[in-house]
């Protein structure tokens, strides 16, 4: 079978890593009639996806994926480039809606409310499900304005003092406040990459979301900035439910409680992070985490 899933990230090509026995990902693409191995469902889900299919035009990017995100857990989504993990993540706050030709089937629920069919407003949804993107993308405005923007448009603050408080609290939670407290009127784009990403996290949490989606938040950062973000994720999980897409298996292992492995648009295996990394049950998962393709 030659079904090659094409996603927003491009054609799912993969090159062999190192000199080990190279495996072509497409030789293993025959996962038709597969069933997700592991435990995709939890008792107390914050968000749940059921039978999700996503298409870009005629190409199917996500094949019948069902997955729960538990309350206050960090779930990591890993998989080779082009496996659809970002596309899947973006279905949770309907960010795929803005991509022309993108179509979605299936159901997503947030606290039992239907996100796609229940008349749920995308503005409301995105206020409850925040997002941090791959590339730090602060607004070309001041640091203060970056954080205050969401609260302001949603009318969360009635006075300037309220707004100041929200900005300070959000910056503190994103562990950025001490670094920028004297620079609040400086442009956010003038910060370093890691600071910018933490500013984006502060911006996301300023509207008090319930869920934060992170799409490879550290892929553009150096190891030190990455470590800080990872620490931050650890602190944030006390208050928020977090879904993180990452290319780095070490990162997934460090920050998440559950890990989901995607392959060519299919969810292959889900389980507690420890188990997935030490005792993968599917051959593809094992090949991926042992680095035979990436």
């Amino acid at each position, binding site marked *: 079978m030659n079904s090659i899933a094409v996603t927003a990230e491009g054609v799912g090509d993969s090159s062999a890593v190192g000199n080990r026995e190279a495996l072509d990902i497409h030789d293993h693409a025959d996962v038709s009639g597969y069933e997700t191995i592991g435990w995709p469902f939890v008792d107390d889900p914050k968000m749940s996806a059921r039978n999700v299919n996503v298409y870009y035009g005629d190409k199917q990017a996500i094949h019948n994926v069902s997955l729960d995100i538990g309350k206050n857990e960090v779930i990591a989504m890993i998989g080779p480039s082009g496996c659809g993990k970002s596309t899947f993540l973006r279905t949770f706050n309907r*960010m795929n809606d*803005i991509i022309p030709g993108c179509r979605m089937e299936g159901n997503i629920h947030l606290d039992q409310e239907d996100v796609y069919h229940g008349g749920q407003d995308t503005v409301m949804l*995105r206020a409850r499900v925040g*997002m941090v993107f791959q*590339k730090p993308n*602060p607004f*070309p405005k001041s640091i203060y304005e970056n954080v205050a*923007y969401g609260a302001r448009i*949603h009318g969360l603050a009635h006075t300037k003092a309220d707004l100041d408080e929200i900005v300070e609290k959000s910056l503190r939670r994103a562990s950025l406040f001490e670094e920028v407290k004297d620079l609040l009127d400086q442009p956010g784009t003038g910060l370093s990459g890691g600071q910018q990403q933490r500013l984006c996290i502060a*911006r996301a949490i300023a509207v008090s979301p319930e869920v934060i989606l992170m799409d490879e938040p550290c892929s553009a950062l150096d190891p030190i900035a990455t470590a800080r973000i990872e620490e931050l994720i650890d602190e944030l999980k006390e208050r928020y439910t977090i879904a993180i897409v990452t290319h780095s298996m070490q990162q997934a292992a460090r920050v998440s409680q559950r890990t989901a492995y995607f392959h060519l648009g299919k969810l292959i295996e889900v389980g507690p992070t420890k188990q997935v990394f030490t005792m993968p049950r599917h051959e593809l998962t094992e090949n991926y985490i042992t680095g035979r393709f990436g």
Partner: protein
Amino acid sequence: MSNQDSYKNTEVIQASLKKRYAREKRFQWYGRLAVLTGFAFLFILLFDIVSKGYPAFTQQYIQLSVDFDADRLGVEPGASSEALYQADYLGVVKASLRQMFPEASGRQEKRQLYRLISIGAEYQLRDYVIDNPQVIGKTQDIWLMAHSEAGAYLKGQVTREIPETDRRVKDTQMQWLDSLAQQGRTESRFNTLFFSTGDSREPELAGIKAALYGSFFTLLVTFLLAFPIGVFAAVYLEEFAPRNRLTDLIEININNLAAVPSIVFGLLGLAVFINFFELPRSAPLVGGIVLSLMTLPTIIITSRAAIQSVSPSIRQAALGVGASPLQTVFHHVLPVAMPGILTGSIIGMAQALGESAPLLMIGMVAFIMDVPGGVTDPATVLPVQIFLWADSPERGFMEKTSAAIMVLMGFLIVMNALAIYLRKRFELK
């Protein structure tokens, strides 16, 4: 690859290197030559305009001792200002000229003598007498505006070397002017009248103010219509409109409209706005509407390009915190795109400022003496005024033409400076 081979390769590359660098040098020289040629032509153009135009900024005055004789004026001493308004000032001017040069005899010579002074002197005297009625019955030295031909001689633009038949200042007039100059009765002053009046049949009385105001009102209407409509059309087409046959058709049409000859827009304005909607003829309102139709494609195309070039990550960031699509556009996309939008709009407005053809069609080519006070008053614009003056046979209008071009260019520079200032301000944010 053996050592022999790699040595040979180095040779080959070395040989080609020289050629490649030579080509680059040649290219650079072509560039410099092109830039220099451009500068040379620009300099010639500016030099020509300025050298022809600067005499228009000075006006020659002649001092006459005017006898404000009550009989000659045809008024009683202590007459009302209405009576003074009707008085015969031209007669007074003529009499004082005859008195100064009694040798002028015969109709022909007297006519020449009277032509030393501008007919505007009549109004100058009238205003003077109304302000100072006590002057009636006295004789006083008064500076009066010289006729444009006499002024040309005093400025040195006309000389005796030119055969008398080829010039309008005759030998006798030259003698009189020379004697006036010897008595210190001629003077050159800055021409304030040029900036404070409208058009006139007499070159020395013609001013740029009516055309300047006309251009200003016309461009104001153009900007108020074309900028918001253009920017919003670009936003809608770029951010909200679905991609289908209809929007493709609209896009093609916008691109084609940008290439439509401007006079066609003038015909449209005549047919639709004047004949059908019966808007006033010759008015900046109609001119502005027509020019905004002409400018819209430019503004829409450049605004769309500017909006397109805004990074999608900013849109995603705004949508991601729950901004509605409209908020995303107005809070984030437009501010970032604004410098580009402004640049395009200014290019469009500059085009509109220099446009005359469509305005001829809607009657803005009229002879306008009064400064327009609003967008519905009859008016003309700078390029049309330049066209009208360039068309006039009097030599005095030649310098006015160049001077008006200088004013037009000044207008353009001010507009561009404003645009650059605004762009810098938006970029800082």
